[in-house]
């Protein structure tokens, strides 16, 4: 697809004799990377398919018996509701962060503002306090505001704590866009706001989508706040990681590894699809814009 245009002219120079060796080298490298990334995931999948307590703990990945019982268990526990909550909460966090973070990033990168470094430091500082120390006061506050066990109760703090990362990413990406382009637009009579969303925003698309994936995944995987502010009730706001941590064995002390890994596989597959969809945008960014001109 459009990706083809991304790395023009990088692979032309090899002579035929060296090509064979290079190909082998490349394939080997790719193999190692795939193994590195996927072997643990493969273990997850195999474990999620195992039945019986001992098979689950066997060092032999291929020891059976195998079956889909673990997946049945996962969905018997209303896991689809947890998925819904997580999608909604992570989605809301991503959208709010990108929208208001874009504005802030643009202002910091392009518009005249006093004490930018101080502002950036302040922004960064927000996310640096050890979160566990913030939980007790926030819990009290949330309790009084009636935000416990609600989606808002989670995506509002997620937004606040992910905004610094968003703003930093977007600021640097906006700053990297040649000024002339924007000025050209202004000369053509565009207002500052038009200049922002018609010229800058699309050009910064790779950064925007990278930020979006990062925010989404961060919010999706967050555990501490989710487990304190919405610890129970999948019907309301319990998120995926909290639900997975709440899986129990049949008896006290027993850890349901099979169910946990099955849930994890169920979670990872849609996540990869989302991440890939966004990543496409990152890579497609250049061709959509007009920098080359």
């Amino acid at each position, binding site marked *: 697809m459009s990706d083809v245009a*991304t*790395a023009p002219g990088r692979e032309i120079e090899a002579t035929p004799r060296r090509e064979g060796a290079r190909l082998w080298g490349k394939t080997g490298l790719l193999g190692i990377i795939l193994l590195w990334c996927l072997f*643990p995931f493969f273990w997850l999948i195999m474990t999620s398919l195992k039945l019986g307590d001992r098979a689950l703990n066997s060092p032999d990945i291929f020891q059976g018996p195998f079956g889909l019982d673990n997946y049945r268990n996962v969905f018997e526990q209303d896991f689809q509701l947890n998925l819904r909550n997580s999608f909604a909460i992570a989605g809301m966090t991503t959208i709010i962060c990108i929208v208001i973070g874009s*504005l802030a990033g643009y202002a910091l990168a392009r518009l005249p503002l006093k004490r930018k470094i101080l502002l950036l430091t302040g922004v960064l500082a927000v996310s640096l306090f050890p979160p566990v120390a913030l939980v007790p006061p926030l819990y009290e506050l949330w309790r009084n505001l009636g935000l416990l066990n609600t989606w808002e109760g989670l995506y509002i703090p997620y937004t606040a704590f992910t905004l610094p990362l968003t703003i930093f990413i977007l600021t640097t990406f906006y700053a990297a866009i040649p000024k002339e382009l924007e000025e050209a637009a202004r000369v053509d009579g565009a207002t500052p706001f038009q200049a922002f969303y018609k010229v800058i925003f699309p050009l910064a698309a790779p*950064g925007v989508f990278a930020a979006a994936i990062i925010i989404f995944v961060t919010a999706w995987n967050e555990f501490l706040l989710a487990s304190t502010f919405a610890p129970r009730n999948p019907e309301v706001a319990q998120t995926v990681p909290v639900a997975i941590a709440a899986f129990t064995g049949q008896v006290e002390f027993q850890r349901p590894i099979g169910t946990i890994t099955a849930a994890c596989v169920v979670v990872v597959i849609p996540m990869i699809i989302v991440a890939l969809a966004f990543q496409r945008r990152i890579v497609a960014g250049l061709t959509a814009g007009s920098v080359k001109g």
Partner: protein
Amino acid sequence: MAETRTAPPERNRAPTGRGGPRARRKGLSERALARLFIAPSLLVMGLVALFPVIYAMVLSLYSYTRRQRTGFGGLDNYVDALTDGRFWSALQFTLTFTVTSVAAEFLIGLGFALLMNRTFRGRGITRAAILVPWVIPTVIAAQMWFFMFNVTPGFINTIFGLGDFSWIGQPGWATFAIVFADVWKTAPFVALLLLAGLQTIPAEMGESGLVDGANAFQRLWYITLPLLRPAILVALLFRTVDALRVYDLVVVMTGGAFDTESLSVLVQQFVVRTPDPGFGSALSTITFVLILGIGLIFVRMLGRDIMVGRGAER
């Protein structure tokens, strides 16, 4: 403050310089727009984060016996924390962990990014594969690596025929196992940011290197990396401040045994396990100041890039 010096002087003086052609074009409306743009972010962050942070800082000035407040202690909690050997050993582990894991993540992440930026057969699956580790929730990834490294079931020992080697049951190797798991999990984060950065480098930049007959490494060193600098700095900044707060991996894999107790584990202990809100908050504040200090170094470096922009570097 000293930071303001780096800002171009004409911007600081802009309100007084009204009337010039520049001010008419860029003046009040832009300034107002800037404030308008930045207001929602500051509002959200301020409303959510300011209250609990200040609350925790105030608590750190009181002395407690477990959860019962016993009086105003001033800086006693800070003195106690800074004279506690546990703080220093936690700091040592945290710094070791941060330096090694961030360095490895940067190198691997850069490699991934350069790879994802190219066209080759099997590109789709490689790109998907690289993201897999990162989307697995940390708590689960930590458990998975516990299974991998631990003597039982001992997957790594089985694969490499290491018998009963106890990776997480001895100092040194326990740190290695935690660093390894973190690198596996978060290198894709660095890769994504750097990939986005690579994508904004105009193609003709890379080509101009070709014309000069530079080899691949020279191209990377003299052209790509300098252009990638802002993205690299952001990635390093956020990896560093995150690594300095490492918690889940340690708790799940070693529980802080074998010299692997991190600052966040220590903070968690005094907030949750053996609650002492005063001491816990003081420890949090110290951790916060420390991380902010390290973060500031990056911000200063980044600040220059943001102020000057890429245009000036050409």
